[in-house]
């Protein structure tokens, strides 16, 4: 690029802007060939370019625009009526002008293009009219008024009331001496001797221009007031108070007066300056966040007030600067009428384009990114969507196709919709093409849903176009569109109505730079989740945390108001170790890491059970001291041999030894036994009084032990709490488990360096109030990584299983077990609190029943085999129907109601199945509800409640007190 004069630069900038306007104007004009203001505006633009190009020495440009100007002046004067050929010719001229301008920009020179054919065409288009002029007597005598001449207002003979304000074509008015039913060029109007105030009403303009009298105007106004619904101009002309030409002029002046008002309040600003401002505001937001954080620790009221003021001002400034970068989407859309016109003509179709929401504003950077995708989609709609006019007529539609562009703000996003009323997308063809191209297997083809088929169109290399035109159909379009839109955080969706048309919906987040976000902590680090992806927060504690998370086919899910929500563990996806209070201090049984939280459910229960052990033991101590010995002396005295001690010195310290509280516990416990020994020796010595005193100390120490254990239990329970962040990506919902949920904040999005841009889970980084860097999660990337949302091919499987899962919701989850006579039995999984395994040796006898110690409670056991005694007991293939047989472990299904539990001892737990419970045969047998088919096998459905009721009639009575 050579050196450029400022003048040339300005010339290029202005001209390019004007050329865009020209495109729009010409297309508008084609629809309404008599639109005066448009014609005048077009003429002015070309005239200006011609003038300046002559001045700057661009001769090609000058000659091309000169010819165009000639044609335009004929049109403007009404001597010619615009037709399709002329429009095309003028549009061609605009393109040529553009091309030359590009040359000038690149090389400083016009280039050596040959534009003679264009010039000839444009000349010829005028030439026809020259012939016409000869037939219209009056018209021929008038020369084309050059821009700077000042003709007298032509002598006007009274003309019949024209249909104001639209001007009929010149030919029809040939009898008039006035060649122009419309006023001559605006330049002449502006040279009116009278200072007509353009902003005034029509009547005043006419009066000021001396074309009518104030009395006439008042009379006309009065008529209007009395109900005459005609326009003022019409009334005046009819009364003969003003001439049609004069009224026309006045209207012109009025129209123009309105236009310039807008442009005066605008100002041109360099985009890089705006970017700079935006950055500075971003920094200001960060600094403000820091000040706010700091101020929360301050007491000084004047400081607090000032920082609050700073906060308000920063917010407003941020909003204001963001607005400067916002541009109406109409800026991109403005090109489309031309695009559509050219394309439709090239395809031999007729397409009408409508645009709603042109004023919808987007950030400038977003506008740049979606310009090309939108253009492609619009071209697609014309090329592929809308049918040929004949086809449309045959289908009962209007021959002209309709393309509707809509834009609106919704839910923090900009929605853009491109709809056509064409033939829609033929899904069968899509399927065929996909099969042909090997994008899907025949198997998949059979299973794909409509939505998935449509999504195939977004695959690279896809196109159902019969032939590749140079317009579209190369098959490189839709996937690029989708990628570009996803790059700015948006989504694209197709809606198809076969035979009626297609709609493409695009959603884009409103702003890139400063966004509201939820801050969470995971593995000790903070992460920001853009609020636009956030749906809700769920916290599970205790029992819910244990039971709430279910596994289907190995994938964790949570039932959120009846719908299954796939779960993702952030720590797991980021492959970081779980951290948090004490996870490095706790060795889980078996050394395994648990799914949710750092503690495991068993651990909080360990403390609960330790506590109950201790309390139980203390009761026995009491007995012992009263002489009813169930304790041995050794047990009483030794801190290692009591119930608590046994636990403490085996698994207790092994698992929790590192916790400081445990040291304290040991200490207390030893003191406790020290006191017990004291009590015993005092008693033995006969000193009852002092032994009672000492007993008080024993109690107090015991109370401390109990409270310590309770505290630890609660800590573990807290660790067990599960925080689920419900998110949405690509229209799919999933839950993400994090360690902690912190706060919501407005954060400034800063891009990651090149080295880190490729990581799919992060969309950027931000600086928190305390100066630390936090990463911003890319929810879509995370979801893709976790396979919650995946590529089309996998998605079909995913959707299918999602469908199956939702079908599962209609069915029930059943627990399958082997019954006492090797038959299969089932019970609803919803009744099952837990599946446990106990060592046979753990089974104790109390009150004539078998029990086990379980979670700090005493769990009564019911043997399934005994409960179904009516069943014939044939020879068993393996196992036995009695407890105490070969197996070391027993399988127990735990049922809990109102805090009370009972365990059902079964032979073998087989599986979990999902079936719709359909009882084939009802059974009168106690303990079962009937027979059904599960997993293809005959299965008896257990009546769990009935069994429990039989075994323990009091079980379902209301629990009075804990």
């Amino acid at each position, binding site marked *: 690029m050579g050196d450029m004069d400022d003048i040339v630069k300005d010339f290029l900038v202005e001209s390019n802007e004007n050329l865009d306007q020209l495109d729009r104007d010409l297309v508008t004009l084609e629809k309404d060939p008599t639109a005066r203001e448009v014609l005048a505006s077009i003429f002015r633009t070309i005239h200006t370019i011609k003038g300046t190009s002559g001045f700057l020495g661009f001769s090609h440009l000058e000659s091309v625009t000169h010819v165009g100007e000639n044609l335009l002046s004929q049109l403007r004067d009404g001597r010619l009526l615009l037709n399709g050929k002329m429009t095309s010719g003028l549009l061609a001229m605009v393109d040529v002008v553009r091309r030359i301008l590009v040359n000038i920009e690149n090389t400083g020179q016009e280039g050596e293009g040959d534009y003679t054919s264009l010039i000839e065409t444009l000349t010829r288009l005028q030439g026809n009219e020259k012939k016409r002029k000869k037939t219209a007597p009056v018209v021929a005598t008038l020369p084309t008024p050059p821009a700077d001449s000042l003709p007298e207002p032509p002598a006007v003979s009274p003309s019949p009331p024209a249909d104001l304000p639209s001007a009929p074509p010149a030919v029809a008015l040939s009898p008039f001496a006035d060649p122009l039913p419309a006023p001559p060029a605006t330049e002449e109007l502006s040279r009116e001797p009278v200072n007509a105030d353009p902003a005034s009403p029509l009547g005043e303009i006419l009066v000021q221009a001396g074309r009518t009298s104030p009395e006439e105007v008042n009379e006309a106004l009065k008529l209007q007031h009395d109900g005459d619904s005609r326009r003022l101009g019409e009334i005046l002309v009819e009364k003969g108070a003003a001439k049609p030409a004069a009224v026309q002029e006045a209207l012109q002046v009025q129209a123009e007066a309105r236009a310039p008002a807008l442009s005066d309040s605008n100002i041109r600003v360099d985009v890089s300056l705006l970017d700079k401002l935006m950055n500075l505001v971003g*920094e200001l937001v*960060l*600094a403000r966040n820091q000040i706010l954080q700091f101020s929360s620790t301050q007491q000084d009221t004047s400081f607090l007030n000032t920082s609050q003021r700073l906060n308000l001002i920063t917010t407003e400034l941020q909003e204001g600067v963001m607005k400067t970068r916002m541009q109406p989407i109409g800026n991109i859309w403005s090109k489309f009428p031309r695009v559509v016109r050219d394309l439709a003509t090239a395809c031999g179709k007729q397409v009408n384009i409508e645009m709603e929401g042109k004023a919808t504003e987007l950030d400038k950077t977003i506008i740049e990114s979606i310009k090309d995708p939108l253009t492609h989609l619009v071209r697609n709609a014309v090329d592929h969507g809308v049918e040929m006019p004949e086809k449309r007529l045959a289908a009962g539609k209007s021959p002209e196709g309709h393309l509707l562009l809509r834009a609106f703000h919704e839910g923090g996003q900009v929605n853009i919709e491109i709809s056509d009323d064409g033939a829609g997308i033929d899904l069968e063809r899509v399927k065929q093409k996909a099969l042909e191209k090997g994008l899907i297997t025949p198997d998949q083809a059979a299973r794909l849903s409509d939505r998935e088929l449509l999504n195939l169109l977004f695959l690279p290399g896809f196109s159902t176009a019969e032939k590749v035109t140079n317009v579209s159909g190369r098959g490189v379009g839709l996937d690029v569109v989708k990628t570009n839109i996803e790059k700015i955080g948006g989504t694209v969706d197709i809606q198809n109505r076969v035979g009626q048309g297609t709609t493409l919906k695009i959603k884009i987040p409103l702003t890139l730079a400063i966004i509201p976000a939820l801050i969470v902590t995971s593995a000790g*680090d903070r992460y920001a989740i853009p609020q636009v992806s956030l749906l809700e927060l769920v916290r599970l504690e205790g029992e819910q945390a244990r039971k709430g998370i279910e596994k289907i086919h190995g994938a964790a899910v949570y039932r959120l108001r009846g719908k299954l929500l796939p779960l993702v563990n952030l720590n797991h996806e*980021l*492959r*970081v170790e779980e951290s948090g209070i004490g996870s490095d201090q706790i060795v889980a049984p078996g050394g395994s890491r648990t799914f949710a939280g750092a503690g495991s459910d068993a651990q909080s229960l360990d403390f609960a059970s330790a506590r109950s052990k201790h309390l139980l033991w203390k009761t026995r101590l009491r007995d012992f001291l009263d002489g009813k010995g169930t304790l041995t002396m050794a047990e009483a005295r030794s801190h290692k041999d009591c119930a608590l001690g046994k636990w403490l010195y085996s698994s207790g310290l092994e698992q929790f030894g590192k916790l400081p509280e445990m040291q304290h516990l040991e200490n207390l416990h030893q003191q406790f036994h020290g006191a017990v020994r004291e009590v015993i020796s005092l008693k033995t010595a006969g000193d009852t009084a002092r032994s009672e005193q000492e007993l008080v100390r024993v109690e107090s120490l015991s109370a401390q032990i109990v409270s310590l254990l309770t505290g630890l239990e609660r800590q573990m329970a807290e660790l067990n709490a599960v925080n689920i962040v419900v998110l949405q990506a690509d229209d799919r919902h999933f839950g993400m488990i994090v360690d902690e949920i912190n706060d919501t904040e407005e954060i400034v999005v*800063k891009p*990651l*360096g*090149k*080295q*880190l841009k490729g*990581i799919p*889970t*992060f969309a950027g*980084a*931000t*600086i928190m109030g305390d*100066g*630390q*860097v*936090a*990463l911003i999660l890319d929810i879509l990337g995370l979801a893709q990584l976790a396979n919650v949302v995946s590529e089309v091919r996998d998605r079909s499987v995913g959707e299918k299983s999602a469908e199956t899962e939702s079908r599962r919701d209609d069915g029930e989850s059943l627990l399958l077990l082997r019954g006492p006579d090797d038959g299969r039995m089932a019970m609803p999984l919803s009744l099952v609190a837990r599946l446990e395994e106990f060592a046979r040796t753990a089974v104790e006898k109390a009150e004539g029943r078998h029990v086990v110690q379980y979670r700090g409670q005493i769990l009564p056991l019911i043997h399934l085999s005994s409960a179904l005694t009516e069943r014939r007991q044939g020879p068993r293939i393996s196992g036995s129907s009695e407890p105490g047989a070969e197996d070391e472990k027993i399988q127990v299904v735990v049922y809990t109601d109102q805090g009370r539990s009972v365990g059902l001892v079964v032979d073998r737990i087989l599986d979990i199945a999902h079936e719709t419970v359909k009882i084939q045969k009802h059974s009168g047998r106690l303990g079962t509800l009937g027979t059904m088919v599960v997993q293809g096998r005959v299965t008896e459905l257990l009546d769990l409640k009935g069994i429990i009721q039989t075994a323990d009639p009091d079980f379902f009575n209301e629990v009075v007190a804990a």
Partner: protein
Amino acid sequence: MAGKKQFSTFVVDQLLFGVGVEKVQEVIRYQEMTRVPLAPSVVKGLINLRGQIVTAVDLRRRLGLRERAAADLPMNVVIRHEDGAVSLLVDEIGDVLEVEEEAFELPPGTLAGEARELIRGVYKLKDTLLIALDTDKMLNLVTSAARGA
């Protein structure tokens, strides 16, 4: 200035390295870093440099040297780069040295693989060798070695 060049120098695992002074934006002490999960292992984390988020690359890892002891805190040499600043984590900061071009030699042929790529050459100084690093290659982390482990 015939054949003289100024280097910003630093020590990594007792070796003296240098990059052209014009490439260095600044040198600062240890900064708290936020780790980046799933990032290449040479990326130790992100630092907040007066409001700018800068990626910190651990030179020991990048050059395939032994890991720093946990108690030792690295210093930051912030390098100007077309895509933004990047900080190199080094053990100690050295002086700015002026070296003669004549003292330059290409790396020996025996220097294997990855390191070869990152080193432009060696300047023979009076008591020691100054290893000149190629910053562009240093910051290009798409190599398999950088991504590994």
